[in-house]
């Protein structure tokens, strides 16, 4: 009997339980029914050993807390839908790895590929393209053995190549770090280079001029933050030494200043090789000749600091003194000027009162004058005053003028002997004026003589 029929209580029909049409190798199969009824929508399942029980339907994935695939999942044209979620256990996402190392989800606003586990996120491809949602504009391309390209609005802006990268358009960056000797180069032929060579900083222009422009001032600082050159907009250019201003242009020229001794040095031919390269200061007005109206120059070849007017030396100073009109003769150099007082004393005589006595020396000529009163005196010595301010040269007598109070109608003169420091009063006939003749009287005299 292969079938058991059960007759319903009413209706006249039957329900049958039927064995298979054949068995394998005469094996017996025993199916044991569960003890109790199952729940709604449950199905009768076997445990593989003939024990039947009620369980969930295979299609009820919603209620299956641990569904598993027994083989490859073929969507057959359908989709796997994952709702808005997040990376956490109670949020919808697709998870990869035993520890959920990689998670893919959409949080309602943005989509995420979240690799937080072990290892890296590797994307392998013959070329990786990142495109817009419509897949018709490039955002980035990663080409094996080739470039990495970055796009803006489907236009390539950045591209790597074998020797670096190319940026098309502007590059805005917080910092651009270049290593030693790495250069920022400008111009089609690298005409301008800026770099640090490991020791020094270099701005190198190889073509044309170098302009630096500023909307207002420009400052060149050295040694940290010390002033070197300040260029003031609509104002001065200032040069500094050790952070102290030394030279500045002004609205009318140039000013050199320093606290203490202030020096303006003009060094020409400083190697002292004797060639005629002279330091000049020129004073020039806009004339048609194109020559300096006046200049001060130091001629090394004849060691003269000279002042030229209209190209002709008028005054010079050399080792011999002040010279004129290009004269080089030592004897013609004016080497001294001095004025002061002196104190005549009566040679071999009694005292005198000096009311005034002065001298002026120009070059080697000295002019002396004096006004004295001779004390009461009966000496027969000559009236001879010594202690001239300068010793007379050995060039013969020098004659001057004199006036005495009591020689009356007898005129007198003064004489300065050569190689002496005396001035003597003589009568015009050559006679001696004795001290006794001028006892208590005054005398005035002057004379000009050559000094040694």
């Amino acid at each position, binding site marked *: 009997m292969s079938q058991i029929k059960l007759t319903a209580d009413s209706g006249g029909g039957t329900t049958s339980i039927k064995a298979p049409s054949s068995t394998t190798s005469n094996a017996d199969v025993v199916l044991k029914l569960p003890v109790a009824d199952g729940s709604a929508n449950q199905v009768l399942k076997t445990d593989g050993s003939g024990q039947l029980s009620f369980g969930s339907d295979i299609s009820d994935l919603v209620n299956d807390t641990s569904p598993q695939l027994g083989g490859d999942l073929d969507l057959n044209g359908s989709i796997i839908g994952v709702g808005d979620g997040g990376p956490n256990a109670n949020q919808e996402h697709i998870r990869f790895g035993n520890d959920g190392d990689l998670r893919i989800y959409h949080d309602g606003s943005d989509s995420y590929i979240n690799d937080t586990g072990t290892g890296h996120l590797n994307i392998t491809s013959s070329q990786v393209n990142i495109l817009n949602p419509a897949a018709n504009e490039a955002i980035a391309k990663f080409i094996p053995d080739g470039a990495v390209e970055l796009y803006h609005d489907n236009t390539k802006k950045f591209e790597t190549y074998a020797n670096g990268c190319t940026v098309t358009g502007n590059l805005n960056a917080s910092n651009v770090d270049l290593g030693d000797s790495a250069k920022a180069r400008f111009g089609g032929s690298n005409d301008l280079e800026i770099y640090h060579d490991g020791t020094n900083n270099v701005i190198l222009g190889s073509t044309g001029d170098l302009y630096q422009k500023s909307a207002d001032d420009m400052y060149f600082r050295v040694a940290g933050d010390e002033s070197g050159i300040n260029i003031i907009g609509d104002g001065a250019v200032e040069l500094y030494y050790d952070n102290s201003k030394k030279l500045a242009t002004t609205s009318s020229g140039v000013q050199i200043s320093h606290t203490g001794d202030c020096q303006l040095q003009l060094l020409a031919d400083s190697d002292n090789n004797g060639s005629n390269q002279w330091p000049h200061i020129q004073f020039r007005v806009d004339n048609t000749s194109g020559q300096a109206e006046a200049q001060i120059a130091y001629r090394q070849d004849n060691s003269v600091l000279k002042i030229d007017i209209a190209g002709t030396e008028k005054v010079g100073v050399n080792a011999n003194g002040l010279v004129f009109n290009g004269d080089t003769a030592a004897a013609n150099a004016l080497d001294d000027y001095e004025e*002061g007082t002196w104190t005549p004393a009566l040679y071999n005589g009694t005292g005198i009162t000096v009311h005034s006595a002065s001298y002026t020396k120009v070059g080697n000529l000295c002019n002396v004058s004096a006004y004295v009163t001779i004390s009461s005196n009966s000496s027969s010595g000559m009236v001879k005053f*010594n202690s001239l301010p300068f010793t007379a040269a050995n060039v013969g007598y020098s004659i001057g003028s004199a006036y005495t109070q009591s020689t009356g109608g007898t005129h007198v003169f003064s004489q300065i002997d050569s190689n002496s420091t005396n001035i003597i009063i003589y009568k015009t006939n050559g006679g001696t004026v004795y001290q006794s003749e001028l006892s208590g009287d005054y005398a005035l005299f002057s004379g000009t003589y050559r000094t040694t």
Partner: protein
Amino acid sequence: MALTESIEYDKIEVVGQYKHVQVRKATVIKKDNKELTRSFERYTLNSGMLDASDKLVDTDLSGEPAEVSAVCNAVWTTDVKAAWKAKLIADKSSTP
């Protein structure tokens, strides 16, 4: 504000065969150590003068500052004095 006056013997020169000593005495006025004026007084010294018997009387240097005396004593040798004396005697006879 302080005014000071000082004396400097700023030039002591020996000139000529008779070793005349030319002295420049500078009077310097300063205000707060800044020089305001410098005026000069000069005099010359020779080794002596003749007395009535034509004997050379040495110049009295007692009133001179030490640096002047030192120069005079250094240059007024016996030979210099002898030459100076001879010159003075010669001048007496050659006076016009």
